[in-house]
Structure formats: C-alpha cells, structure tokens
C-alpha cells in the first residue's frame, strides 16, 4: 500500500502539469485574494465528489480547541485520473495545506497545495494554472 502511494504521488506530480482541472464556477468570485491561508491539521474526512472533492481537517487553535475547515480541491475525476483512489487520503493523516479563504467568511478555503509530513507536495488541482505546478 505504501509503495503504491509513493508511486501515486509521482504520477500526480507529472500529471498535474498536463491535466487541467475542471472548475465549473469562478474560484476568483468565491475566494478572497486578500485572505491567503496556511494551516496544518489532521484529516477528518475526504469527500470524494464532483465537480470538486473536499478535504476536511481539524485545526487546533491557540485555545487548544479543534476547529474543522473545509478545503476545496480538484474534482474526483481529475484525482482518479491522477491515480488517486478514495481510500488514499485516510482520516488521521496530518497535512499542511495552503490556499485562500472563501469571501463569505465561512471556514471554507480553496487548496493551492497540500504538503505531507515528509515534505512531499501534492498539487490540489483547484486552479488550472496554479503557481505550485509551474
């Protein structure tokens, strides 16, 4: 399983360069360029869906309380074609994720990149010309 995941991430890195993501709405309208975010937390759920998949993470604040954030990524089909499977991002995985918060002020954000504890990066695929892939 572990070997397979390593292989998947290699596939993901290569594929991310050539595969455009399939946004179905304007990310610029939904998210706020003035609210860049970077946070680390524990994955509570990966919602495998189209047109976009969602990663939910618990982020522990200064008061020690965990707050759940929803991060939007590329769609399930794009992830599938990059070699991801539903079970690959399991609950409990620690990730560092960055992107931009939604304009409506909810605990929702658009993922630009996802970094795993060992430093490997995974392009989230929300935006087709993401700086992280260039």
């Amino acid at each position, binding site marked *: 399983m572990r070997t397979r995941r390593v292989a998947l991430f290699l596939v993901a890195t290569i594929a991310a360069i050539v595969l*455009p*993501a*399939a*946004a*179905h*709405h*304007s*990310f*610029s*309208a*939904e*998210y706020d*360029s003035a609210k860049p975010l970077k946070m680390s937390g524990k994955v509570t759920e990966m*919602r495998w*869906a*189209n*047109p*976009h998949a*969602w990663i939910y993470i618990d982020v522990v604040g200064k008061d020690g309380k965990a707050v759940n954030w*929803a991060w*939007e990524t590329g*769609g*399930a*089909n794009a992830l*599938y*074609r990059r070699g991801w*499977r*539903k079970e690959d991002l399991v609950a409990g995985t620690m990730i560092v994720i960055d992107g*931009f918060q*939604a*304009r*409506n002020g*909810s605990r*929702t954000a*658009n993922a630009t990149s996802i970094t795993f504890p060992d430093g490997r990066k995974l392009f989230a695929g*929300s*935006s*087709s*010309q993401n700086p992280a892939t260039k």
Partner: protein
Amino acid sequence: MRSSSRTILVYGLMLACVTVCCSRQAAIPRTADGRPDLQGIWQVRNRASYNLEDHVARHGMPAGTGVVQGGPIPYQEWAAKRKIENAANRQNDPLANCYLPGVPRIMYMEFPFQIFQTPDHIAMTFEWSQVHRTVYTNGVPAPEGIDFWMGDSRGRWEGDTLVVEVSDHNDRTWFDMAGNFHSEELTLVERYTMVNADTIQYEVTITDPKVFTRPWTIAMMLHRSEAARIFEYQCQAEAEEANGAFEPDPKTWYPGPGAPVTIPAEWKGDTGESAWKPPARKGAIRRMPDGKPDLQGYYMPDGGGGNYGLGKHEQDFLTPGGRGIIVDPPDGILPMQAWAKLEAEDRKTPERGYDDPTAHCFVAGVPRSMYVPSPLQILQPPGHLVILHERMSWRTIPLDGRPHLPDHIRLWQGDSIGRWEGDTLVVDTANLNGKTWLNEVGEIVSHAERVVERFTPIDADTIHYEATVTDPLVYTRPWTIALPLNRQKDELLEVACHEDNQDLAHLKDIRDAARAKRRK
C-alpha cells in the same frame, strides 16, 4: 382422410416457417455488421417509475401494474423497513431533487431517450437532464475503485440479445418514486431483445446481497417513438427558474429584446459561403468505411483558457490565464457592442459569479461545451454525429439535411444540424435560448446566437475545431475561435455536478451580501 390431414400439416409447417422467417428477417432492422439495430427514440408506456410493483393511485402518482417478475421484491427484513420509510418520505426521492436517476430507473422514466449504435459503443441520450449512458461493447473491462450514479455499463451480444452488465453503482439512487432502493453492492444484467421493428423487450436482473434475499427481475417493453428528435428537460434548471434561485436575464434570454432577430446584410463569413479555407493537414487521417473522416474517439479539448476569457489574458488571482483562441477578428478581441462590454464587466464581479449557469451545474451551451476543461467522446453512428460530454450533457447532430426546429423552440444546447464539406464536418446550431454564458468571466451570447462549427481532422489524433458565432444583439460582427481537440486513450467518467455542488451556496452568500449592502 389421411391425405387431407397431411395437406393441413404441410400447409401448417409452411405457415409456421413463413411466420418465423418473417419475424426474424423482415421485422427486425439490422446494422451493417448484422446486429439488431436498436437505434431510434424509445419510451416506456408504463408506470414503473412511480412504483415497480402493482400500485393504486396516490397524490402525484398514477396507478400502475407492476413489472417485477414472480412475486414481491425480495427485501431483507431491515431493508423492507427502510423501503417503507422511503415511501413515507418522498421528498427524499433523489429525483425530487433532480439528482441523476441511476440505472435502471432512467430507462423507464416517462421521458424519451435515443439509442445510437456503433460496433464499439452503444450510446443512450436521455431527454431528462441531458443524461447519457455509454455501453462499451469493445471488450474493455469496467474501471475499478470508482463509483457512479449511473453505474458503468459493459455490453456483449448473445445471439440477437444485447446483454449489458452494469456495475460500479453508488448507493444514492432509488428504483422508483415508491422508495424501492439498493446499496452500492448493486449489480445489474440488462437484456435488450427486439421483438419487432418498433418494440424492444427490456429485462433487468437485479442483484444486491446487502439488500435483497435473492436476485429478482423486472421486464417491460420499450416502444419506438414517432418523434423526430428529443428535446431537453433540464430538471434542476427548471426547478431553479420556478423557485427564483436562477433569475432570468431579459437582456439575453429568449424572447428578450429584438426577437425576431435579423442578421445585418453586411455581416459575412457566418454560414460557410465565404472564403473559409481548411487547415493544413499534418498527417494521415482515419476514415470510415464510407470514406468520410472518422472523428470517433475520446478527446480532451485544448481550450486555451477560453473558459476564463476567449481573448489572450494573464492569470488573475484564481482565474487562469489564456493564450487567446479568437482567430477572427484578427486583433483577437471579442467585438462586443457597448452595452455588452459594460454587462461583461459587471458579470466579472464576484457577486455575479453566482449567475454563471455552469456554477449551478447547468449545461454549458454552444460553443462553450467544446472548450470547458472537460473531456468528450465523439461517436459516428449512421446519419449522426454524437458528442457526449463528461460534464453530463450531450449533442446529437443529424447529418440528413433536415431543417432546424421552429424558431420558437429554444434549447440550452440548441438544435444542431451537420453536413460534410470535403473532410470538414460543418455543424450549424440555431434555436439557442440565450441562457448560457461563454465562460466564467461573463462573456456574452444571447438568444440571437447562431453558431457554425467546423470539425476538421488534421492527423489521426487531432481535430482542428473552429466555431463562428453570429449574434447581432451582442456583437458588431461575427467572430471565430479555433482550438485543437486532442485524442487520448481514456474513457469518459461521470461528472455528477449539482448533486454535490457546495460552491453555489457560497456564491449565493456573496451575491446576497452585495445586494444587501447596495440596499443600505
């Protein structure tokens, strides 16, 4: 006495032979490869979509005779209780929410569908919400590790019966309005047998070890419709227009201003009579047995960022840049009228993000369907070109020279008619409803839009695609985009969009907040 009974026997045998021969040969149309020809528009004449079992009428649910063979549906005990709960909560019916109906339910809804047949694929395009199914008859196995609302369909011929195994279902669809249901362990075997030219015997064996105690079967007839084509029932769009969630735009929607629209006489280059030259050939192209170019396959459009602006533009925050795909006018800028420029600027603001129809998961229209970053499958059954878009929508383009629909019939994807000019397929699309946007940044078309597309293969794996848009309500002249469609080795997956669309609520918040601020 003996002689006369022998005569009767002989005549009887002859009659039987004639009957059998006729019913086998004359009554069933066949394709060029000798298979039963299932192509045409089909529809059930039963009430199975309300309840697969015998039922009397209830509010909004007409009575009907059951289609389940050999007794009641064999639910496990827990599942029988769940079915009763479902029946009492019809608001939870996935169809009440315009979700994808799943298979087999889509087959016996009271909406017509069309079957297209090639040796490798059988495509079904449904009136209901532009749903489509592809039955792969090319021997490629179903993908693993993914599930779909509509399942995955792989077919084979057993004699004259098409047998389709449907797997990879999710657990979110029902069989009918009465709440009959299944789990993700559902598998189906469908059998399609033509009993005469206008009737298909349709049987489905349903297996789900999590929900039922044994496999069970439904059976019904599909009847050929006399309709020349099917229209659209865009379930979610109709619902949102009715409840006000999707607001009309009188500037662009049919009938809107300026209907009927006349094209200025000085506008040229829109219908193919002008000096259009085919693109340079870069290699040998594939051809059909009749010598026409073979455009069939799975393609990824290289949309050049057209979904974020048709002209050349830089990346702007999360809106990707684009190389510019406008080839006419030569300056690469959309020739918008003054009002349209202002309107496009307004549509670009965050509060208008909600108004883009694709943010609601409605179909993209023409030509946007061709450059959204999403793959498509082209089929070329006899007399048609069929385009299946992964973002659940389809275009079926007859090549028989028929006229367009009457002007007052307006559709999201319009009415497309095709013809070959040399090795270029020219597709003329009219009857558009003016509800679609050209892209996320709000570039505009109206109901006056008419589109002439040209599909020209330039080598075995590339189609040079051009679309000329003529819209005298919005533009000062016709304009043309060009982009390649690149053949890839892959299959379409399914984009169930509105079913899991979380973005629309955020975009609505942003719009509502902006409106509230303006009111203050």
